[in-house]
């Protein structure tokens, strides 16, 4: 049971995600999660004020169904396939995070100090993070699923450029900006 309820190892998670992508390709679709944000903007009427959202978003309904499934999957994983899952991160990461005041490091799935305390500072962090994700994924034409998994699996070099960008941004945030934010 521990195999199911504990952390799934990378060599189970990675190949399963690839198989999901391959099934989507076989169904004539391409795996790309962030385009759902554009579809959702179009669905709530953004096409009236901006032509980027003036497209036949209903052709992307399959991806919204995939998104709906992802929400259900998160529910099943957390409630039926886990009993308060804790991310067993490395000791170095735990001490670095404790120095930032994250006492939940090594004791929870997420930093509870950030996600379960809606202070003005946390709301701004989550909002700004979301803005960067929405803006960046559309500018780069994809996120981790579209570029790091699908694009690289198809050996497309623009996706490699995007992944290098993801890492430059991530390293900047964690090494330069985190000490200023937390």
């Amino acid at each position, binding site marked *: 049971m521990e195999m199911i309820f504990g952390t799934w190892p990378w060599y189970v998670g990675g190949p399963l995600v690839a198989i999901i992508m391959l099934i989507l390709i076989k169904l004539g679709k391409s795996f790309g999660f962030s385009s759902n944000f554009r579809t959702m903007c179009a669905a709530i009427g*953004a096409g009236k004020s901006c032509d980027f959202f003036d497209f036949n978003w209903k052709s992307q309904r399959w991806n919204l169904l995939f998104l709906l499934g992802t929400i*259900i999957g998160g529910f099943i994983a957390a409630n039926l396939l886990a009993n308060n899952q804790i991310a067993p*991160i490395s000791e170095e990461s735990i001490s670095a*995070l404790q120095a930032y005041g994250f006492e939940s490091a090594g004791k929870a799935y997420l930093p509870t100090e950030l996600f379960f305390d809606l202070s003005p500072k946390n709301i701004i962090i989550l909002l700004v993070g979301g*803005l*960067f*994700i929405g803006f960046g994924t559309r500018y780069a034409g994809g996120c981790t699923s579209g570029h790091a998994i699908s694009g690289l699996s198809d050996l497309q*070099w*623009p996706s490699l450029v995007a992944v290098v960008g993801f890492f430059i941004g991530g390293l900047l945030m964690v090494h330069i900006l985190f000490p200023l934010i937390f």
Partner: protein
Amino acid sequence: MMRKLIFVLLGIAFGIVMYKAEAASWFRIFEMFNFQSFHMYGFIGSALAVGVIGVQYFKRSQSKDVDGEDIVIQPKAKSIPRYLIGGVFFGLGWALVGACPGPIFALLGSGVFSIIIVIIGALAGTYFYGLIRKYLPH
């Protein structure tokens, strides 16, 4: 109808895997950008290993999709600025929030409701891109 159900089921499998293998854990993303564990690199690397073999097999065997159409993977436009600059913005957000778009929705299902703030931000960021894209280098 059947096809719709398959997309939902694939999404369910994806959400479960993202949560259980901890690609949706803020801590794991922090650890990855500090190079303090192999976990996330192994995750992405093994996904790629299986993905490359599968996609290359589809292309070389000229397989068809379930509707009998040729499998065509749209090539990305060849340029650098949009992927690099856009990628940096996404990386900043990914590291700050500790989740990329798929895991954001898996977290919503898992009961982390503050992630709704991230979703609102992401929709606003996407809309902002749509407004100013004419002025950006691509």
